[in-house]
């Protein structure tokens, strides 16, 4: 095993599922881009929350409701710290990036955009950062302006900025492509867009997992994250929303918890961020997310990034040595996400089936990126996406499994 800034053996010991076998082989989990595994502290926190500290939040005056509320609400500050948000009231808790971006589409964009206004997107966005904008196109006549990736899979920040025209009202862009691993210079985009008076939504679903994030430094207006990719429970997440934007938003989902008063002919709303959090939330999921983020921060995002860069360099060199393998995206500074196809007739599903027999879990398909696949001229790829607990030994297992796939399918 190549040396790392992290004690990876100790980290792996924190994740019980990593010691299981799949198809008789040790699990090599390389589908982290889809969802990350959970450390024992998160699993324990979930159990403890249900076993000892559970009641509905924000409502009851009884002991357990107060305790659960305290635990749940304390996560807002953890997320603010994790994202570098100046004020925890700029954090809206939700079920993940999809809900976060839909909140911006319905709560902010529908309120502030008109027919003919434009939203600038990159071609490598995830469907979660495409479909909500298609809703506005279909329903309001909003125009989607697409910026292509370069041949190496990089995204030219200058081209994104140049796409901003007089009718552009929003830039919605990922910080890290879930297919290509491309890291986007969102800081430059935000600065230039701000100078033109255009807000920027950053899809941080992937980036927050792999690099230190500071929304204040980035200068974005919206930054969406997903808990289950951050080693937390599924159904948890959050979105940072700059105060000025929050003030421009109307509520999206209506129900309990987000109101101040309701009568037969009137309703007044709670102050943000509660205004945007209707109904009983994912109480335990959110508590678990707080523990997951604390876990990540205790390891250190810089160290996680450094470890994954080492893995990325190692994997890149190994995969480059396979002349029958085509890796999509080779942008400088890319993250440890490798999408690939094999020369010849092998389908991505063929490859993933063979890898699975070797215990290697990867994703095969379109990765929720239809426009990018069309841009690349592909119908599907296999994707190996790494996390803090992966090792160079696992890269070697991947390469061996790929060699077998090549032999069987070639």
């Amino acid at each position: 095993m190549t040396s790392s800034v992290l004690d990876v053996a100790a980290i792996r010991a924190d994740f019980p599922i990593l010691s299981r076998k799949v198809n008789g082989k040790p699990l090599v989990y390389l589908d982290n881009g889809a969802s990350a595994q959970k450390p024992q502290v998160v699993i324990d926190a979930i159990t403890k929350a249900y076993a000892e500290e559970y009641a509905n939040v924000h409502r009851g005056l009884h002991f357990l409701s107060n305790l659960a509320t305290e635990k749940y609400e304390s996560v807002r500050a953890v997320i603010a710290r994790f994202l570098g948000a100046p004020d925890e009231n700029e954090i809206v808790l939700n079920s993940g990036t999809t809900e976060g971006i839909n909140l911006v589409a319905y709560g902010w964009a529908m309120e502030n955009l008109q027919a003919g206004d434009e939203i600038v997107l990159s071609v490598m966005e995830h469907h979660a950062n495409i479909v909500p904008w298609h809703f506005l196109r279909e329903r309001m006549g909003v125009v989607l302006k697409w910026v292509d990736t370069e041949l190496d899979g990089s995204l030219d920040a200058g081209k994104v900025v140049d796409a901003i025209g007089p009718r552009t009202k929003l830039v919605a862009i990922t910080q890290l492509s879930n297919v290509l691993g491309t890291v986007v210079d969102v800081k430059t985009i935000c600065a230039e867009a701000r100078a033109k008076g255009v807000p920027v939504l950053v899809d941080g679903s992937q980036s927050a997992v792999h690099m230190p994030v500071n929304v204040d430094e980035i200068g974005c207006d919206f930054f969406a994250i997903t808990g289950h990719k951050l080693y937390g429970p599924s159904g948890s997440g959050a979105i940072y929303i700059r105060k000025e934007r929050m003030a421009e938003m109307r509520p999206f989902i209506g129900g309990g918890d987000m109101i101040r008063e309701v009568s037969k002919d009137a309703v007044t709303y709670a102050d943000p961020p509660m205004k945007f959090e209707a109904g009983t939330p994912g109480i335990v999921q959110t508590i678990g997310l707080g523990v997951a983020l604390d876990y990540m921060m205790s390891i250190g995002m810089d160290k996680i990034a450094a470890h994954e860069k080492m893995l990325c360099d190692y994997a890149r060199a190994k995969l480059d040595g396979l002349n029958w393998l085509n890796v999509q995206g080779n942008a400088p500074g890319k993250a440890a996400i490798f999408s690939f196809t094999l020369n010849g007739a092998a389908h991505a599903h063929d490859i993933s089936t063979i890898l699975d027999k070797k215990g290697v879990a990867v994703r095969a398909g379109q990765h929720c990126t239809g426009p990018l696949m069309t841009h690349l001229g592909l119908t599907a790829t296999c994707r190996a996406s790494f996390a803090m607990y992966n090792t160079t030994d696992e890269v070697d297992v991947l390469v061996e499994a790929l060699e077998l796939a090549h032999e069987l399918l070639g």
Partner: protein
Amino acid sequence: MAQAAFEELVEDFEFLEDWEDRYRVVIEMGKDMPVLDDALRVPATKVEGCASQVWIHPEVKGDTFTFMGASDALIVSGLIAVLHRLYDGLPMADVSGVDAKAELGRLGLTDHLSAQRSNGLNSMISRIQEFAAAQNAG
């Protein structure tokens, strides 16, 4: 006992101990399948519920069941070829009686048969069975 062509395959598989060799055979069988004409790769023959693209074109010739099929994935093409050996050429009346899951189990390929598997083997078998049911009812 299934058809001779399938029994032959079962015999061959008995000598193949590791899964790599079985896959190798299945993949080669897929490659050897007759090419399905583009005119038959249409919505009516497309089998939904498969992660890759799959087409099955069942027919009755005289009293005999026959089908053609194709996929854009090699392993799935191989599974279609296995089904071909199991079903193709059977008297129409016998198709419904085939316990495909049990027969494929004899090949050690049952890991492809769980309901959640997206390769669509279940969907392909259903397509054949639905065709047989409709024929026999008609």
